[in-house]
């Protein structure tokens, strides 16, 4: 794959990021509601206090001044100060990011682990029991409202059965020593099985709630593309040559069948980032999604701007990685 095209793709990122920033800025500035007033609401503050807080927040500058200041600072990694935490935005986001990443990846892995084998089996034994069950299951998976399903899981497993914890990411007593900030990695690095078990117990319900719709979609995509591939001439040809079905599957079919799965997974990762918010709220997961929507409601502009930028970058990069993976899995495809 030519490096020039790689560079082109990466450079394409920049105007997109700029566009995202402009849109977020416009939206926030067109949104009625004043963060200073919100922060002092219900606290019996005087109008002078609100005015001085606004000034302290830098909100009495003109819109263009604020935009320029934001953009120029963002380029050097300074995303300003969170209006509510009164600490640098980058620090606030960095604190909450690992939890969201862990949850998203767990959901993604869960989805892939369930979807790919199911999709393959369903396609290979088309019309069989697994196929029917998987298809019905997939239909359910995309039809379940996540917020409702999550609450039901919580009540069922955490409250009634008491098999799993009610909320949070980990119990204090089980915390592994801090190395990366990612609980699973830290647990493994420090060989703490109890930490790992505790983290996984906390992670299970939110990851299932988040990953189920994705698993459903990916299963159908895998099944459909597997069916497609199995029909291809070169497969029939290989069969004629006498290769066992297993080898055919493993060598040829799977690699090609997974291409659309990879692509769709990348696209759906975008929805994972956004779907985090509801799941994080229901399960009390200390992640970024919940923080971002709360920030929208209190007009914490700098944090929302930085977070949206982060989402955009992540989304584009993940898609880019997916494209790369695409070429690795199928060398016939030219970039």
């Amino acid at each position, binding site marked *: 794959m030519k490096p020039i095209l790689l560079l082109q793709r990466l450079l394409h990122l920049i105007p997109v990021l700029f566009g995202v920033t402009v849109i977020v800025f416009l939206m926030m500035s067109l949104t*009625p*509601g*004043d963060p200073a*007033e*919100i*922060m*002092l*609401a*219900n*606290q*019996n*503050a*005087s*109008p*002078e*206090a609100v005015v*001085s*807080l606004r000034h*302290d927040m830098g909100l009495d500058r003109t819109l263009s001044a604020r935009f320029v200041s934001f953009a120029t600072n963002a380029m050097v990694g300074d995303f300003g*100060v969170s209006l*509510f*935490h*009164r*600490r*640098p935005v980058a620090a*606030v986001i960095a*604190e*909450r990011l690992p*939890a969201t990443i862990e949850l998203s990846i767990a959901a993604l892995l869960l989805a892939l682990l369930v979807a790919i084998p199911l999709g393959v089996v369903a396609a290979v034994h088309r019309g069989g029991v697994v196929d029917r069950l998987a298809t019905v299951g997939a239909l359910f998976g995309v039809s379940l409202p996540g917020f409702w399903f999550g*609450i039901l899981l*919580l*009540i069922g497993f*955490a*409250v009634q059965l*008491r098999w799993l*914890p*009610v*909320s*949070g*990411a980990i*119990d*204090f*007593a*089980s*915390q592994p020593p801090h190395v990366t900030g990612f609980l699973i990695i830290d647990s493994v690095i420090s060989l703490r*099985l*109890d930490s*790992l*078990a*505790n983290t996984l*117990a906390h992670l299970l319900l939110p990851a299932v709630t988040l990953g189920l719709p994705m698993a459903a979609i990916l299963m159908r995509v895998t099944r459909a593309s597997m069916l497609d591939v199995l029909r291809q001439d070169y497969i029939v040809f290989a069969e004629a040559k006498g290769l066992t079905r297993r080898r055919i599957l493993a060598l040829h079919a799977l690699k090609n069948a997974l291409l659309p799965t990879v692509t769709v997974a990348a696209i759906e990762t975008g929805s994972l980032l956004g779907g985090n918010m509801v799941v994080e*709220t*229901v*399960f*009390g997961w*200390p*992640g970024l999604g*919940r923080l971002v929507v709360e920030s929208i*409601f209190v*007009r914490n502009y700098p944090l929302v701007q930085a977070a949206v930028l982060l989402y955009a970058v992540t989304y584009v990069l993940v898609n880019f990685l997916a494209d790369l993976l695409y070429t690795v899995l199928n060398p016939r495809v030219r970039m």
Partner: protein
Amino acid sequence: MRLKRLVIAAFAAAGLQLAEAQPAELRIGFTLDPLTLDPANHRSRETESVLRTMYNGLVAHDPAMKLVPEVIEGWSWIDPQTMDVKVRQGVTFHSGEPMTADDVVYTFTRILTDGAIGGQTSPRKSLLGPTKSVLRVDAATVRFLLSDPWPVLPAMLTFQEVVSKSFAEKAGAAGMATQENGTGPFKLVQWRRGDSLVLERFPAYFGGAPAIAEAGKACIDRVVIKIIPENASRVAALLAGDVDIVNELPAHDIRSVEANRNTKVMAVNGTRTFFVALNNTRKPFDDVRVRRAANHALNRQLIIDKLLNGRAERLNGVMSPAAFGFNPSLTEYTYDVKTAKALLTEAGYANGIDVTLDADGPQKETAEAIAALLTQAGIRTKVAVGEGSQVRAKWAPTSKREGDMWITSWGNGSLDPTDIFEPTLQTDGRGNSAFYSNTELDGLLAAGRRETDTAKRAALYQQAQAIVNRDAPWIFLWLPQDLYGVSARLTGWAPAASGWLNLRDACVQ
């Protein structure tokens, strides 16, 4: 085979840890993560509640909400614009340094000076009112200089906590936000953002306000504050035994918590007055008869019984029964639909009126209940739910004053009338959303602000309440209790109206 057993054992161990709690550990299920650990750089009640476990202030509240000195021995007014406080000796910061008058001066100067917190101004500056500056008089005395008389200064000092000068200067604004060095009974061990805080007992604690008797030997070594914003999850955690205290217990869950053998409900009278502001400057509520009709039309006790589980007190005015100068003999507007309709007819609205009730999200349910009841009496009410900031903007005294009714509240944490009466009912008060104006009332309030004789001051405010009761600028509602769910094994703890966690004497058996 061995590996398998190891794995099973690990899971079993983890499972045990999931269920058990260490005996000397207190776990709290709390609604919101603190925004920062810097006591001077936030305006959040929840942050203050958490910080007060690690920091002390000059004054505190005792369980009866009376003001008591904490890290000072007392205060005295030199003149109406000068107050001295005597700094207590023997108070130590968690880092080991003793607290001195310099730390007190530094704490308040930091709050009062613009840009003193890493370029930011403390958002708590306005809580110090007309305080101009704070000076050290000698090693044990600190002086507060005011630009205007302000008798409530001691009560307002409960909103500030003392920080260490040397620590703050070394750590800077960024450090103060993420590290703590207070004088309080507990010190911070770990803060997992959005998830939990872990505190450990500070053995060299000076003991707290002497006026608050200790309940016994301190038995909690560690406190884990878990952040569980979702109501159902928080209550579920309590019922499952994962936590020992939860705050903001929804009124609806009282039944399940009481029914559970291991948990019970604890309540304290709140300090937030709820009311429906009526637009006194526009039809139909510019007519006092219509306003009185609205008061008669609402069955407040039914709403309290059904929606708040009986956990609120009906009010006939603005002030809480625990507040200074409360008038207990105000006339009640009894629930009487016939009288309401008669008053409406008298005012010329024999066919009833059509009005809109504004509310923000959290008040939606109450607003709908109120609207339904009012409609039965001929006041056909539609509910309009909006975002908090938008609704508040619509009802600001500087707005176009186009609304009909707004269900809202005003807090009175200091339990002093100046904090609530003036903003909400004085002409052009910043919280006067009824746009009510009565010059006689204004006179009484101004006099009360300056009156130093307690008895005379109380009488002035009682008179003021009678006027408001008569004029009915609002539909008077209620004062809800603050509800907490606690484990039955918890002793030595009671909720405070201020929302502070007061964990010094708490014990879990």
